């Protein structure tokens, strides 16, 4: 008897579909872009956005809190007066932290999206998932104008998380409510 794989492939071949012409990509590849549009679109999701020059100064808002930070965030981010939690961290420790501070890989102006790829200043995925508050630092040069531009900058085989605002649901009468399982508060610092 043929295996499931062989049988499925054979059935597909039996359908004898004709080849299709090449895809017409007439849509926009880029967009207006820019810090302002990104900030406006992030704020639309009811995230908190600030444009800042001096990151350590802006991080004063974390005073007195217990904050998770990946090992490789810039050393000047680790200001005094904050209890910094570094890996290795258990799931329970992450769950009990007040928040998490990270950088990002890419951001998208059109959609107000931040993309994490586990690279520099981001850590593994659980770090930005369990704490109830996520503070993300975005450099102006990391902001791509459009979705196509952003995907081009990313390495697909890394574990990626696209974040557009705090966690939300539209499951009750199709109205958006912020805050379910992921961080209920998202704050973004755009470094200009």
């Amino acid at each position, binding site marked *: 008897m043929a*295996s*499931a*794989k062989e049988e*499925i492939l054979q*059935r*597909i*071949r039996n*359908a004898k*579909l004709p*080849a*299709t*012409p090449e*895809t*017409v*990509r*007439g*849509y*926009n590849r880029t967009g207006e872009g820019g810090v302002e549009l990104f900030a406006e*679109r992030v704020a*639309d*999701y009811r995230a908190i956005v600030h444009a800042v020059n001096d990151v350590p100064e802006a991080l004063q808002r974390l005073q007195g809190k217990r904050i998770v930070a990946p090992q490789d965030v810039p050393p000047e981010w680790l200001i005094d007066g904050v209890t910094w939690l570094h890996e290795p961290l258990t*799931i*329970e420790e992450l*769950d009990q932290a007040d928040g998490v501070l990270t950088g990002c890989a890419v951001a998208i102006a*059109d*959609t*107000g999206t931040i993309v994490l790829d*586990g690279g520099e200043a981001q850590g593994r*995925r*659980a770090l930005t*998932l369990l704490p109830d508050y996520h503070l993300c630092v975005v450099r102006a040069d990391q902001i791509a104008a459009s*979705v*196509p531009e952003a*995907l*081009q900058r990313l390495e*697909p*085989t*890394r*574990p*990626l*998380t*696209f*974040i*557009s*605002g705090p*966690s*939300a*649901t*539209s*499951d*009750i*009468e*199709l*109205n958006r*409510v912020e*805050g*379910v*399982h*992921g*961080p209920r508060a998202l704050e973004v610092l755009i470094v200009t």
Partner: protein
Amino acid sequence: MARNPVTWLGSPTFPKAAKAALNDTQLRQNLRKATGTIRGRRAAAVAEMTDWEMLRVAGEQIKDDVLARLDTLLLQLEESVTARGGVVHWARDAEEANRIVLDLCRAENAQEVVKVKSMATAEIGLNEALEAGGVHAIETDLAELIVQLGDDRPSHILVPAIHRNRSEIREIFQRRMGVEVSDEPADLAEAARVYLREKFLTTKVAISGANFAVADTGSIVVLESEGNGRMCLTLPDTLITVMGIEKLVPTWQDLEVFLQLLPRSSTAERMNPYTSVWTGVTPGDGPQKFHLVLIDNGRTATLEDSVGRQALRCIRCSACLNVCPVYERTGGQSYGSVYPGPIGAILTPQLVGDMHDPLAASLPYASSLCGACFEVCPVRIDIPSVLTHLRAEVVEAKGRTAESVAMAAAAWMFASASRYEKAQKAGSLARFLAKDGKITSLPWPGSKWTSSRDVPAPPAESFRTWWRKNRG
């Protein structure tokens, strides 16, 4: 062969179920409110895009290309997933897929698994099969949880509990979670957060579906809103993903089209809160065991139909449900399947693959052919054309029936002016049978028509009679 669980066992045909649903005023109110809200928001989200039509065309062409090269692309996907430490399984039908997943759960000694909302697993009846095998599946999407705790059935692709309003949801949560909660959506969401938190942190096996799988990189993509998806895709040791064989895109670049089309069409957002992408296993981050189960379950048979196969382009956004006048009035459960609404009316019968099945054969008629579904479909599935094509198949499967005899008689009558007039005069008698201007039951062969819909009563005087009297 076992029956395909894409339709629910014992469900009545669409007209029977719809008739019952139409009497449920609460249901109609809930649906009108919810679909009205989302229709307006979707229109605004789409109007913002000057290149929307070009994105739709590209979406259609990419998906057609996937179907044309499906065998090659599936092999490519298998190779790239395997190279990155994943294990790929193939399943001909629901029964085979369920057995594979159950065996994988047993191999991990899992009595409980957490699940991300997935149409593919709903289609194959996975939860029921796991339960029968001693494994309890916990739905973690808010709407799926409402359906599961309410011992209910889903009625919408995106929001399975769309038929429930906030006070009904409050009642279900209080009864099943044993907590006091208000009917404020924020409080209900908080109750779900507390209820599921412990499960997320301790459960070792998760099951998900997939929105897209990228053939050339082996990357799997899941779009969601609540973060329950991220929990399931990140925290457990083992991840089992079940997806239909048509969910592929050829390259990473192709995602740039669908990541724009899907959120705006489905939740009417520029982007959904969370999208996760993973490729096999990443050491030190996320599940260290990854299984991908590819299911056919009627898809290859659908592929053989040159008109019907476009249903396989579907990306499960549910925009067609939200604009459908039939769906808005009858609700999703009337369709007797996890795939309701216009897309369900063409996809379900094809996956069942048997037009002698009374429910499947009734679904292509669950439409007024108004065409609103085609207008909003992000991958340009011409649903009205597929509906009429499938109706022809239903008629062919039925052979010469009372209905086809009645239709032939009607054609004979309409073909001649005098015959038509005679029939109209006879028809004015029908006013005596009519109540409130509607005829609800005609004598045979007309009963074949009125058993599933009402006919407006003919006027006391036909237009032709009136014209002759006044103008002739």
